[in-house]
């Protein structure tokens, strides 16, 4: 994603971005293996709360959606649904190689290969899986990005909604599926 250099936010937006940057609540949706490195990141060893981050129970409350690794198409539907339930400004941090290009599962029939075709990703963390230090570092980067007003994935999603929707439908056929779960 091209980062816009010029800063055309007004003062209120800057203040708002300051608050957003320093208080990031994450919707920790364990979509994949990267989630195993989140407990250490959250708990006493690395203590994510120092950055003002904390886990939240529902997407309505959360600011950032962590895609912790590969996404099966079944999960991607839920991720899109969750993402659309979140309130803007909202950010997505994608963990690991799998979200970038499918990683080790590049030829799997069940997992997607490129996440940013379906939802806008603000920040990728490379690695399989990213270490807690890497995650912390990424969060620090995200904070800087938000402060500078560069984490605009959610705006991009709104502006290119059709494109994203089309990609989603191409890969998933349906997003909000109507199958009432095998009953």
């Amino acid at each position, binding site marked *: 994603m091209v980062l816009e250099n010029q800063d055309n936010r007004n003062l209120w937006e800057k203040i708002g971005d300051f608050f957003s940057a320093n208080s990031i609540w994450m919707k920790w949706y364990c979509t994949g293996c990267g989630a195993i490195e989140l407990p250490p990141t959250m708990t006493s060893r690395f203590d994510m709360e120092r950055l003002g981050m904390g886990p939240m129970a529902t997407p309505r409350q959360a600011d950032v959606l962590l895609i912790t690794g590969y996404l099966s*198409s079944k999960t991607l539907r839920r991720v899109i649904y969750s993402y659309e339930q979140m309130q803007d400004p909202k950010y997505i941090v994608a963990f690991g190689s799998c979200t970038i290009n499918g990683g080790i599962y590049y030829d799997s029939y069940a997992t997607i290969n490129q996440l940013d075709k379906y939802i806008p990703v603000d920040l990728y963390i490379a690695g399989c899986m990213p270490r807690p230090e890497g995650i912390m570092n990424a969060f620090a980067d995200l904070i800087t990005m938000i402060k500078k007003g560069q984490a605009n994935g959610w705006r991009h999603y709104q502006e290119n909604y059709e494109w994203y929707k089309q990609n989603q439908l191409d*890969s*998933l056929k349906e997003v909000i599926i109507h199958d009432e779960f*095998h009953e």
Partner: protein
Amino acid sequence: MMNSMNNIIKQIDDVLTITNSEIITNRQFAIDINSGDVHQSLAYLKSIGFTQLSILTCIDLIANNEFQLIYILNNWELGLFVIVRTIIPRDNPAFVTIINIFPGAKYYEREVHEFFGVTFEGNDSYSKPLLLEIWDDIPPLRKDFDPQVYSDSKFPKRDLDKIYRSKIGGVD
């Protein structure tokens, strides 16, 4: 230990009609059974101490146009595994459920149906999707299913300038 296993195989051989038996390790042996005898064999094995169904799975023997169903039973008392194998035809694969012998097989059978398309008569929920959602291709674990093709057609990849890929087998 080897002796006790041999005794067991002998005992089984006396009672059941086994087409073939194979000793894999000193704690593990495999028996081949005609598909019609599977249920009584499993029931018998359960009665002599193979009380736990460890896994129920299937192998796609595409060369013979057959499926091989695998039932692995565990005898905790003796520390023995038995691999019960049976062959069913690959076209219109159908078999009868074993949930009245091993209730735990319910979801294994669902999974085998989903991965190979084997139907299990008597298991009322075998045909429901388990791991996959809105699956629109042949069952994925059959040998003639190519996940790479499926993935390429469904899930677009990042356009990279150059793709490095090694040839399988090590020789380019």
